[in-house]
């Protein structure tokens, strides 16, 4: 329990970011919903169209809506220029504001439609202009209902804002995603408690305002508004107090190795005098795009991933040739700088428990074509969509009875519990040795190389001092060291933090900083 308290207290800046993101999204939602509601009250067609649109938005899963704003903003750069951010606060704000639209709009339109027609006729009859009627009669009468809509929107938005972690916006989702990744339930629980607590507090405060409006008690309304304003101000203070604008932002995809390597890089840079921030839990495609557009500064990526996903190549050259082509492609297409290989490879491979493989007589992927037809294959959420999997499947003619998606950490549990027979594993994962798994041979070379390489955003790559600070990392980390580091955060007992794992990794690789 002490762990949870300590973790909760460490979430101050995430909470502040969460408060600011949510309140900005709700404010934007209100700013959009109220004029629409006024327009809708004057026209049945507009009412139907706006409510239809808001309901449609609501049917899009929040995670997808957040992700969709990345390509939308990217295409809008044609209009607004290259400075338009495509990751982080802006897309999260827009997606969440759209999400907040429905409850506010629906309550406002419904309340307006249910206003006593006699009162409206009287407002016209005593000679009120359009705006007088809106201000003196309609607004005060529908305000409590709109406030109820804002309450609903606030609770939804605060919950959905945890998902903005995936598009690079810090939030209370950070500990949840990091904790899910490493089965660190303390982190997950702390993130959930903080975001649920925030939602409850927001609901209570907005409820106070609603009650104040309904019973026409100005003091209650003003008190509620004041408390909300104080909360937002406090969040602003935490966010912007002593923040340095030119921080180096290090991205990490959503698995342990990436979190550790990001810390390893961050610790070196901090020693070199840089201010450092992290964007954790990015999706694979989002992460690469983020570094090539400068939304983040540094990312560890894998040659095979870039080769098949970003370059859309299906051939499989030797590793030096592949790296050379990648370096050329990155500098040609975006100016992204490839610092070099870290030294280890984190390939995709098909893994089985050693005993099960032996008893079924399976040693290579080819054996699965005949013996795997009754088996269940598990993979991370991206795995079955990736070209590497399609290449392997077609090369060996694989067919399984079922396939299931798991969060990376849970794949290994699934293998142990028998919910999957084969998984698409990562070769640098510490659990391969720990769980006594065997990586099936790939004699046809269907999986490409996955050398871990350090990518620097175009502008960041021009910083000679930064490149020098990171240079010792190149070639310094072998797969055994990486496996040990991964296992130290993934195992159930004696888990260490990402920071601690990064420090131990640096020590083992002989590159610790003084």
């Amino acid at each position, binding site marked *: 329990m002490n762990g949870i308290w300590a973790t909760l207290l460490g979430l101050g800046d995430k909470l502040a970011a969460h408060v600011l993101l949510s309140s900005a999204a709700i404010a934007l939602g209100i700013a959009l919903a109220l004029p629409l509601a006024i327009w809708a009250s004057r026209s049945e067609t507009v009412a139907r169209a706006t409510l239809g649109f808001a309901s449609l938005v609501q049917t899009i899963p929040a995670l997808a809506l957040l992700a969709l704003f990345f390509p939308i903003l990217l295409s809008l750069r044609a209009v607004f220029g290259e400075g338009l951010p495509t990751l982080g606060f802006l897309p999260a704000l827009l997606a969440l504001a759209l999400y907040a639209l429905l409850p506010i709009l629906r309550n406002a339109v419904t309340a307006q439609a249910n206003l006593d027609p*006699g*009162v409206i006729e*009287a407002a016209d*009859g005593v*000679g*009120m202009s359009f705006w007088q009627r809106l201000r003196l009669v309609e607004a*005060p*009468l529908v305000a409590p209902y709109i406030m109820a809509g804002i309450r609903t929107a606030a609770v939804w938005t605060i919950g959905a804002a945890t998902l903005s972690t995936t598009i690079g916006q810090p939030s209370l989702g950070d500990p949840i995603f990091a904790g899910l990744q490493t089965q660190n339930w303390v982190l997950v629980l702390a993130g959930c408690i903080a975001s649920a607590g925030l939602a409850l507090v927001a609901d209570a405060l907005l409820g106070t305002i609603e009650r104040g409006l309904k019973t026409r008690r100005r003091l209650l309304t003003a008190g509620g508004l004041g408390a909300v304003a104080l909360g937002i101000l406090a969040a602003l203070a935490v966010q912007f107090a002593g923040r340095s604008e030119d921080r180096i932002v290090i991205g990490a995809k959503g698995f342990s190795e990436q979190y550790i390597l990001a810390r390893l890089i961050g610790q070196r840079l901090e020693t070199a005098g840089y201010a450092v921030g992290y964007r954790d839990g990015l999706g694979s495609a989002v992460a690469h795009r983020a570094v090539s557009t400068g939304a983040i500064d540094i990312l560890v990526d894998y040659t095979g991933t870039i080769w098949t996903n970003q370059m859309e190549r299906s051939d499989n050259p030797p590793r030096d040739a592949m790296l050379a082509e990648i370096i050329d492609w990155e500098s040609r297409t975006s100016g992204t700088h490839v610092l070099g290989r870290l030294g280890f490879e984190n390939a995709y491979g098909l893994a089985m428990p050693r005993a099960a493989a032996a008893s079924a007589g399976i040693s290579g992927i080819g054996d699965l074509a005949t013996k795997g037809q009754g088996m269940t294959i598990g993979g991370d959420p991206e795995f079955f969509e990736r070209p590497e999997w399609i290449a392997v499947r077609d090369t060996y003619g694989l067919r399984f009875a079922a396939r299931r998606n798991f969060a990376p950490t849970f794949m290994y549990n699934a293998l142990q519990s028998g919910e999957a027979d084969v998984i698409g594993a990562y070769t640098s994962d510490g659990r391969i040795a720990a769980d006594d798994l065997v990586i099936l041979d790939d004699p046809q070379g269907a999986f490409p190389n996955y050398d871990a390489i350090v990518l620097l955003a175009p502008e960041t790559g021009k910083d000679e001092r930064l490149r020098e600070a990171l240079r010792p990392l190149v070639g310094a980390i072998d797969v055994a060291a990486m496996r040990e580091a991964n296992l130290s955060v993934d195992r159930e007992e004696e888990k260490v933090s990402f920071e601690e794992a990064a420090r131990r990794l640096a020590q083992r690789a002989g590159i610790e900083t003084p």
Partner: protein
Amino acid sequence: MNHAQQAPLEFRDLRKRYGATPAVAGISLAIAPGAFVALVGASGSGKSTLLKTVNRLVEPSGGTVLFEGADVAGLPLAALRRRIGYVFQSVGLFPHMSVAENIAIGPRLVGERLPVSRIAELLELVDLDPAMAPRMPDELSGGQRQRVGVARALASEPQLLLMDEPFGALDPVTRDALGQRVRKLHAELGLTTVMVTHDMAEALLLADRILVMDGGRIVADETPHALLDGAGGEIAQALVSVPRGQADRLAELAR
């Protein structure tokens, strides 16, 4: 009728259609200053529609309405409505405003503050205790609410008072009392009043001119006395026969 004086209200070939149905089918008439006119007819006869064309709560399909000689279509809407007192069938008090705020709303719209003494005076005009000023509408009885409605209509000191079934929802005792009160105010304040009602007895007792409407047309335009004498034609007499029959039966019972 004094033709030298400007008619406060005149309709010229006024028409209103809802789709294919004519609600008002070409009405021309003038209303003299100081008249208390009752517009009587069954539901759907067009009487409310005709009344609402005066302050343009309904826009006519054809013809003109003249208010003090000016075409209402050419007058600024809000200003026109503030010059005409209007009492609604549904009362239409603003539920979030106190009695005093409701009464003072008309002057407030043009930036005037009605003094407390004037609000008290208006409340007394409609037989309400001035101490009621701070109450909210939901604390009042139906009759008290409509009295506030009448006070609100009079707050801007209009010359023309329009009433759309003003006493329809009230109990008979309140209805009678408020009717007589309004009739007295009409005389005291020198108003011209047009009242829509489906109750011929109310019209006979309060008005000095009765217009009977049917199918969007005026089918009778008589004084109460003439109507009781059998004038006005079949439809008007059918309406008059109801209270007359009731009066006869009551007289018989009392004998």
